[in-house]
């Protein structure tokens, strides 16, 4: 069982879901994957299908259009999974608070493990968020 837990920490595959963010956070997530920050040294790969993923990176407040899709993508990620909310939007809905189009923030809909604050957060913060989430869940 220990080997399984260790390999889960060592090989988190990321899936990135934009639930209506301004794309600022998404660009920072892309920056995290560049050779400068090199998350592959931690075993992370960005995968294109939620079925392959372990870590769901959620950005943005959940818009009304996005709500059913968000739930569906969350359900498609096989257990055990980790959800990381990236950006202030995904924490509280920040600039969109009070809008009638907003159903979020994400933690109202699915359990969120770690919140990464910032508008947008720096790549270092995102890496730290992923590592913290894995330690918290499997460590």
């Amino acid at each position, binding site marked *: 069982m220990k*080997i*399984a837990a*260790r*390999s*889960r920490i*060592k*090989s988190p595959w990321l899936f990135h879901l934009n639930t209506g963010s301004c794309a600022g956070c998404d660009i920072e997530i892309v920056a995290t994957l560049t*050779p400068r920050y*090199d998350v*592959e*040294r*931690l*075993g992370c790969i960005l*995968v*294109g*299908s939620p*079925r*392959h993923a*372990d870590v769901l990176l959620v950005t943005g407040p959940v818009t009304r259009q996005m709500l059913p899709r968000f739930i569906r993508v969350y359900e*498609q990620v*096989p*257990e*055990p999974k980790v959800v990381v909310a990236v950006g202030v939007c995904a924490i509280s809905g920040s600039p969109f608070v009070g809008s009638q189009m907003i159903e979020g923030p994400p933690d109202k809909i699915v359990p969120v493990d770690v919140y990464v604050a910032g508008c947008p957060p720096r790549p270092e913060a995102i890496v730290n968020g992923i590592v913290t989430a894995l330690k918290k869940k499997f460590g």
Partner: protein
Amino acid sequence: MNTVIILLITFPLVFLLSLLFEGIDRKVHARMQKRIGPPIIQPFYDFVKLFNKERIIPMTASSRIFTTVPIIAAAASILGASIPVASLIAGSNVGGDLIIILYLLTISPIMVMIGGSSSGNPYGAVGFSRKMTMLIAYEVPMLICILSVSVNYTSLAYYDIVLTQVKIGSLLALARPSMAAAAAAFVLCMPAYTETVPFDMSEAKTEIVHGSLVEYGGPYLGLVKLAKSASNFALSFLAVSLFFYTPALLERYFSPELGGAMLLCLVTTLIFMVFTMTVPRTIFARLKIGQAFKFYWLVPLTLSIISVALSILGL
């Protein structure tokens, strides 16, 4: 009886070696991009993790096919990789000749293709059609290469061809012009066979979301990945031992009985794999399916036909 035991011992060996080679491949790839890269044992972590995940079978999939296909793919490619390794260890022909090895290695892409189309996902269908196109593009030159080798040495037995190189004391690729052309065509076909980057349109992540693999998750994905790395290893090993069997050059120092020849062959395989898969994967971008098809029917096919013509002429 003895050969069966050797084949069974080779199974775990091939499993470990193919994952290790994949790890080294990823490390070199990262280093070429000035990154630190994942640890060399990363594929083992991935494999164990995938095996400890939930199994999800999509509602749209025909579940029987969807779940059995990865097992067949992994078994076929590990068996295909074990036959050459076991033949070299045993020092005789184990399990079958070249045609069987090549067809075992072809089973795994076909199985993944069927799995993708049985998942009911439209991207799986796109992956199916692209993989089919590529299969037609690279399979023909590759088989003609093997045909040329067999015309030259009137043998299809794998170990006989390896022995021929030891006997003439030179690499097969350097022995005759016909064999040089065959080796070149074989090497050019390898990236398409293993679907590494310039020819990975059927599994293009950013384009068709992993193609056939899109609905696979958990243990099934682990098996498909294992099948892929086993066939990478098998093809490099096959190419090295058929065309570039380096122990033949250093026969005095590496007697086949001591396992030194095997070790040297594996090291050559590693270097060969880095140059035929990792380097192109790092420096090229993905081609379009039409360009790849045209390339395969222009260059490797011509080379392999030239090679057959030369070997019929006795060169």
